[in-house]
């Protein structure tokens, strides 16, 4: 006769051990977001905007045109034969082609933002070279504030993406694997309480969540000087709420799937739209107005908005009632449906 351990503790330890003993999973949860933040932070770091590459056709009186454009700020001109210029324009290597002559002709694709910018710069440079003078004085004041850079935008987005990804994969994968190897059935044959089994997944999530959030925020702070303006409590509240929401979604996705392949497909169907639409890498305001109401209802949009508000803008939770409420709604709905349709065998 002996005393057994606490089942909830043992179940949670099982989750934690299984995860820690899977080096690949560790990489995707902890290292990958940091690598991504590092790479994107460097690539889109606070450098001056690159000059736009344009071409001048080697026809007629091209020299004065070329020297005027090449010396203009924000432009980098190359001399090309007409055929080569055409090819480079088509493949997007130059934003615009200037055909010398009277009048000079600008060839460009008006739907490309870069070409549009090139057109403004070329127009201005050519008019100045021809003697135009400014009629009104305008002064510029350049701002480079912590919190307004790309990395400041990106880091909370990556945090949100990670909370979604690890929540869904961590819970969904483990449950489907356990079901697939008929271990769930074996557990059911024991007096284990179903609620404790499900709750152990949540507890293990909270354990890893703390590590992944703290490591990413510290990385951003040390390497890129990303500000953390909100209070630790507010941030913790948003993070935990987000993790619960996606734990619910992960449970729902895993509630009936029998195979790893099946659940992987479902995961992607659920997550990929949110990676794109919910403002992880770029602001969702870029999407057409018609899509905005739908995007704003997505749980990752709510989480990202809330994270940016507390981390970067330093708002209190009172100011982000809408996204927090939306997350609670998603979480409750997902848990409710998942528990109803969950397949144990």
């Amino acid at each position: 006769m002996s005393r057994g351990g606490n089942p909830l503790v043992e179940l949670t330890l099982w989750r934690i051990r299984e995860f820690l003993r899977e080096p690949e999973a560790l990489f995707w949860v902890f290292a990958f977001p940091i690598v991504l933040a590092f790479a994107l932070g460097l690539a889109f770091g606070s450098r001056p905007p690159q000059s736009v590459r344009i071409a001048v056709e080697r026809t007629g009186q091209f020299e004065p045109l070329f020297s005027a454009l090449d010396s203009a700020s924000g432009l980098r001109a190359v001399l090309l034969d007409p055929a080569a210029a055409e090819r480079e324009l088509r493949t997007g290597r130059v934003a615009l082609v200037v055909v010398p002559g009277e009048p000079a002709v600008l060839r460009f694709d008006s739907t490309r933002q870069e070409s549009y910018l090139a057109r403004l710069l070329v127009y201005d440079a050519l008019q100045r070279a021809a003697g135009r003078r400014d009629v009104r004085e305008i002064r510029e004041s350049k701002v480079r504030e912590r919190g307004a850079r790309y990395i400041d935008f990106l880091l909370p987005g990556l945090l949100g993406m990670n909370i979604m990804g690890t929540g869904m994969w961590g819970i969904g994968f483990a449950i489907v694997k356990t079901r697939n190897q008929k271990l769930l059935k074996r557990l059911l044959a024991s007096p284990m309480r179903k609620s404790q089994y499900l709750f152990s997944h949540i507890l293990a999530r909270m354990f890893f969540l703390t590590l992944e959030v703290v490591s990413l925020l510290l990385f951003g702070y040390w390497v890129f000087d990303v500000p953390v303006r909100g209070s630790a409590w507010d941030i913790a509240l948003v993070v935990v709420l987000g993790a619960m929401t996606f734990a619910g979604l992960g449970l729902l996705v895993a509630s009936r799937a029998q195979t790893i392949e099946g659940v992987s497909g479902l995961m992607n169907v659920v997550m990929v739209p949110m990676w794109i639409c919910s403002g992880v890498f770029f602001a969702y305001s870029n999407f057409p107005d018609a899509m905005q109401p739908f995007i704003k209802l997505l749980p990752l949009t709510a989480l990202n908005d809330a994270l940016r508000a507390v981390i970067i803008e330093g708002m209190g939770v009172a100011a982000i009632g809408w996204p927090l409420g939306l997350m609670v709604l998603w979480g409750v709905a997902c848990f409710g449906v998942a528990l109803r349709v969950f397949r144990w065998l």
Partner: protein
Amino acid sequence: MSGFGAERAVPGAVATAILCRGLTKRYGDVVAVDGLDLEVRVGECFGLLGPNGAGKTTTVEILQGLVPADAGAVTILGMTWERDAAELRQRLGSQLQETKLADKLTVRETLKLFRSFYRRGRSVEEVMEMVGLSEKRDTWVVKLSGGQRQRLAVGCALVCEPEILFLDEPTTGLDPQSRRQLWGVIAEFRQRGGTVLLTTHYMEEAERLCDRVAVMDRGRIIALGAPRELVASLGAEHVVEFGLADGGRLDEGDLRRLPGVVNVRTADGKTYLTVRRVHETVPALMQLLAVSGAALSELTTHHATLEDVFLSLTGRHLRDE
């Protein structure tokens, strides 16, 4: 619970561990279990023997309260799944055929996990000792051999000191040595007074372990009794098995008239003679072959087994070989 205790208290009475009546389970058009009646006594090892697809696993899973039956009544230790599921789960040990335990937990962690679900039971150390895995205590499940994994699965069923141990094909796919080790574990459990319900398609296993065997085919029990009784029901103790070259045939009437022959049966192009005395039948058979000009492709003799019982009842082999 009280029912079981009362039954056991009656001196001389044989208590019933498992009782089921009219058990039926359909999967679509397939009838997996077809009106099954079963009674397993406390302290006995009861075997369900049958080919794949006979309904053994479905039966065992219904008895364990994992799958609901379409019809029929199940009483376990005097209790029912509808009323006493929580109490029953505390008192049954289970090993399921297809279950794979968690790959990256160690032997000790796995047993500790299962132990934590039960109010009372054995210590993890004791169970590791019982199933011979003490030396592997810190080895991950994924690194265990097939036999060790299966012993661990049985160990997980033993942590609660169960009154009934359910084993679904515990030795399928194991080498002879691993199989014998597992038989040892089961025998020890029985010595302590435990009841075992075992499914298998190995007749040797059933003969070795089981007090009584139910032979199952197509969801029904087609024979029930002690292994020796079942073999005795063939009316003779030996089997002469032979095949003829070039698809030759002998007249069945001629075979029946050979000395000592009790029964004649053909399956898969071979002929099986159930005989009382091999040394009388074989020379006579040789003579018959010589007279009819048929040539032997093979000839073997063996003691009659449950395999022969199954063959004589169904005309089919227990295992698809």
